[in-house]
């Protein structure tokens, strides 16, 4: 077992893939590096199989939506059971038509993770064997984890919009008060005359 730091792993990656692998980010807590979209499968396979690295566990695969930069980042968290080191990779995809090659061939677990990202972010994974929605129904409109997602206001006639129950209570309360006010002047008026 030889635990390497993220910097060492990154240096090995840059040696091998040149400018397909971007610089390691400023260590804002956890650093990451951005990999060119076309090379991600190669990079992943290298990281998984290279002796001494063996990042055999795809810990997490998810995405982040950045409307301001007009990209969706797909994030790969890799970990090695043998060497206990890890690295975070990111791939940037165009927000209008996000397409990223699948790493399902490298780690089987990517199959479901990528389906989830496809479902909730609308990223298409090229070469994925079974790219279907996983959480939401097949005919759902939109991708909820995108920042600009708007609810359609219902699904097949089932409304998902509801008034705030407090508003409802307030209305009942107001109605009661109005009724009481209506009854009260009638009772109060004769007393005032007297």
């Amino acid at each position, binding site marked *: 077992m030889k635990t390497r730091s993220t910097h060492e792993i990154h240096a090995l990656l840059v040696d091998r893939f040149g400018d397909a692998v971007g610089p390691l980010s400023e260590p804002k807590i956890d650093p990451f590096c951005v990999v060119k979209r076309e090379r991600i499968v190669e990079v992943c396979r290298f990281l998984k199989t290279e002796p001494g690295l063996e990042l055999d566990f795809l810990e997490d695969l*998810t995405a982040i939506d950045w409307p301001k930069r007009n990209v969706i980042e797909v994030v790969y968290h890799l970990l090695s059971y043998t060497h206990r080191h890890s690295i975070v990779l990111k791939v940037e995809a165009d927000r209008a038509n996000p397409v990223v090659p699948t790493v399902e061939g490298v780690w089987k677990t990517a199959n479901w993770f990528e389906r989830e990202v496809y479902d909730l972010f609308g990223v298409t994974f090229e070469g994925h064997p079974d790219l279907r929605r996983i959480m939401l129904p097949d005919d759902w409109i939109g991708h909820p984890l995108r920042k600009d997602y708007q609810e359609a206001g219902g699904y097949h006639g089932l409304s998902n919009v509801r008034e705030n129950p407090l508003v409802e209570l307030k209305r009942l309360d107001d109605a009661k008060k109005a009724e009481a006010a209506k009854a009260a002047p009638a009772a109060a008026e004769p007393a005032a005359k007297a």
Partner: protein
Amino acid sequence: MEKLILRRVDRNSEEMVLNFGPQHPSTHGVINFIVETDGEVMKRAIPDVGYLHRSIEKIGEVVGYPGFMPFTDRIDYVAAMFANEGYAIAVEKLLKVEVPPRAQWLRAISCELCRIASHLVGVGTMTMDIGAFTPMVHGLREREEINDYIEALCGARLTYNYHRIGGVAFDLPEGWRDKVLAFLDRFDKFLPEFDRLITFNEIYKRRLASVAVISREQAIGYGLVGPNLRGSGVDWDVRRDMPYGAYPHFKFEVPIGKGWAGTVGDCFDRYYVRCLEMAESSKIVRQALETIAQQPEEIMAKVPRNVKPEAGETLSRVESARGEMAYYVVSDGTNKAYRVRARTGSFTAMSVIEDISSGLMVADLVALISSLDVVAPEIDR
């Protein structure tokens, strides 16, 4: 889904396509399986998940950092302590806050009790799925008692909301320590009793031995974690190998599957690893309760009321009852998280089923699902 159901059904064969679930007692929540069978033997079972999807990750982007804590409970309500802890650790890493030692001890105690409770449900429902009702009742009896102690500690029996960003909500109540130690004395005797009752029962063992074997390579490739991973013989435990909180101070073993009844990575291994883990958790709680008196009284670090970490991102890992639970939290410098992601063990455990199920008997699918100990809301979040 319809296309999926109707494709490749040959009307002249014995082949059938069945819906197994979504409301089925052995699916442990609302999960559907589309089972393609040829008589009693399955061609494959395709899991269809998402019935409990509540988009908790989106909620995390709306409610602000401390406000998200009660929602984490709902990710895994059988072992909610871990969901709390993982999220708290992630935000603490973003804030660069050091948790006081006593709070770390309290976290370890509450989490390990919660692990015992969760495993009792896990192994209990597994025996019930196989057809033995009594052991489950025994398991739930012990779990009830643990729930009582956790209730005394934090006021809730299921969705605890006990861990806070920077510490925990309450210190130990008076007399709690002795009561729990007395319970653990009884519980340590309960485990061998449970083994005599069901684990080494010949019928039960044969029912699980060499059924639904998940090899080491498959387990790693499919991203299985926790007891499911260790059942396949991978020696990995986040508490020991990437220690966090108070765990470096405790001594405990990490049980791994040895093929006790048949092959390494079969249903029995996954089951028995959980039984052994309960004994280890009991050891950890004992050690923590013995040393907690030496820790200073502080249980909360100084955390601003308006939690506003600087921009950055982090991943926190905890060893939940269902394996590694990771929170990936991205901050953009405001008081709301830009992205909260919960990586859960049940999700990846479900993904292995389609591959493993081919060639299994329909009845063994039940054994496979319960041996993976999946919790439906943790899959769907």
